[in-house]
């Protein structure tokens, strides 16, 4: 009897920790945004994340993402550097939480870290000016990984 209850306890504990392991895995859900090109941090000029339409642009206008990174650029400070930019909520709902994530790369293109910024209560049509601090001294370029929220 004691053995049986012990096994039940053991299996229950394994179940809890398996759930934790599963929970710490990546979800299959798609990102709101992903960009395949990285940007050098030497430039201080704002980088427009979205491609600007040209006169030869296709007539069909793509629908805007729910959360849109309007621009981002590198800012060098006295004690630290950061990525600054703005995110717009293109929906009619208030996001109680929004975050923007960037991957950081060195000269060789190897990832040396990541950074993110977040905010609460982004209103419909509202714009959030973010600043994500870069601590990695060897970071030479950055790439937007994701802008997401709920």
């Amino acid at each position: 009897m004691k053995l049986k209850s012990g096994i039940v306890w053991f299996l229950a504990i394994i179940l809890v920790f398996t759930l934790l392991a599963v929970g710490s895995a990546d979800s299959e859900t798609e990102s709101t945004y992903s960009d395949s090109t990285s940007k050098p941090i030497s430039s201080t000029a704002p980088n427009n994340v979205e491609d600007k339409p040209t006169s030869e642009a296709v007539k069909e206008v793509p629908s805007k993402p729910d959360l849109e990174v309007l621009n981002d650029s590198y800012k060098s400070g006295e004690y630290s550097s950061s990525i600054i930019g703005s995110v717009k909520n293109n929906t009619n709902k208030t996001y109680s939480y929004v975050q923007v994530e960037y991957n950081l790369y060195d000269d060789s293109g190897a990832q040396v870290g990541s950074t993110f910024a977040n905010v609460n209560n982004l209103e419909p049509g509202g714009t959030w000016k973010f600043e994500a601090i870069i601590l990695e001294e060897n970071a030479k370029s950055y790439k937007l990984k994701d802008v997401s929220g709920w």
Partner: protein
Amino acid sequence: MNYITNIHSKLCYILMILLYNIPLLLGGLIYLAFRPIDLIMFDWVKLIRLQYIIGIYRVEIHDFYYILPYYVIYSLPTGLWAYSFVTTISIIPIAKNYRKYMFALSLVIILGSEIGQYFGILSGFFDLADLTTNIVFVILAFTTIKIKEWVK
């Protein structure tokens, strides 16, 4: 008198479960604070409608992301979970000769998850720091169990 002793031992048992699971909670809080929100864990947060609270928590604690060492955010949580796992296993009411099999299986699960990642059997990235942390925390857990037995 027996009744009081019984209650006292039950209270001690509950207290022990709580103490052993503080590292589990701490590891979970580190994950919820600093890890990307595309983890399955955050789908559960939405499922139980805690996203508003977790959102506030993430924003309020965000500055610690720049202060805490990389190791604390990315390796320590699994070590804390390994500690909780082994110590919680130790309080299962079961005969001692079966307990060693449980510990053996626990070690296979904890260390096997990292080694499985190394060989590409399990999803995720193998990290030597994670493996080392898990081993250190498993040793710490066994030390705690031994100390508890000596105190008894």
